[in-house]
């Protein structure tokens, strides 16, 4: 991918290869996008807790007996 010319000089990409800047931007885009899409554990627990407490309003059941599973379909971005 890279070759060197002199010890003190910069690593230059081979002719026609992507510059390292383009590679860096591409990697960062992927990372930032992936992090935005992830629901962290705390938020997920909060969702479970809130849905559970709504259910107890209408159904006579102890909160610990409710199991809430969250599946996100075609989920792109958090508000």
């Amino acid at each position: 991918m890279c070759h060197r010319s002199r010890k003190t000089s910069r690593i230059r990409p081979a002719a026609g290869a992507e510059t390292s800047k383009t590679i860096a931007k591409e990697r960062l885009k992927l990372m930032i996008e992936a992090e935005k899409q992830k629901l962290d554990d705390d938020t997920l627990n909060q969702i479970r807790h809130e849905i559970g407490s709504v259910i107890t309003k209408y159904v006579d059941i102890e909160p610990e007996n409710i199991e809430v599973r969250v599946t996100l379909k075609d989920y792109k971005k958090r508000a």
Partner: protein
Amino acid sequence: MGKVITFTSGKGGVGKTTTTANVGAGLSLLDKKVVLVDTDIGLRNLDVIMGLENRILYNLVDVLTGKCRLKQALIRDRRYQNLWIIPSSCSKDTTPVLKEEQMKRLLGDLRKEFDYVLIDSPAGIDYGFSLATSDADLVAVVTTPQVAAIHDADCVLQILKKKKKDIRLIVNNFHRQMVKDGDMLDIPDICELLDAELLGVILEDENIIICQNHGEPVMGKHTVSEECYRNIAGRIAGQEIPIPDYIRRKSIFSRIFFKNTAGKLV
């Protein structure tokens, strides 16, 4: 029994993570079995610099809280023979859920498996810093020749000296021309100010940024900084490598000084 070495700095952005990654790669090239541990909880960088961000399944917090086994969180760097990393988490929850005993137990396990455990400490002198340094056999304080970095390095050194830690200094981003022009503090100045033994000097090198863009250590890229990292790795592994006189001083005194400041490690 492996050795635990923590890279810390006080000030952020002086090159702890880069140094950890490259010294680790250098040690693995010396046929040592090495693991790099990112302890900067919430702000993971080490995996990004090593280009291993897409291979994370579990992280340090998962291991310490017992969510997964140690083996599951270890990511092998296939470019090197004997190099593994444990990434940090990226959760927004920054509460210190981790305890020193958990860390000690983990490091005990890693010591049995690896020759060197290199810890990338978070910046600052908060809980994360004490967690990263609590069980270290050697603490390498990374600084640059800039006033703020040296000032913060001194704060860190004072804390570590009180804890009776074995400490070495690494000077990163050393511009030879600026030192020659009298616009940058020289190595003897920094050693005198901080009163610490030198482990190595890393010359300023644009290739570090280029390699990080690619997600690779500079090892094997034949750049000026590569040699510096190799020297540090060699010194850690017990080789006697003097610190080169990068400025080519004329006076005999400074040459003697330079020969003697490259500390031998036990």
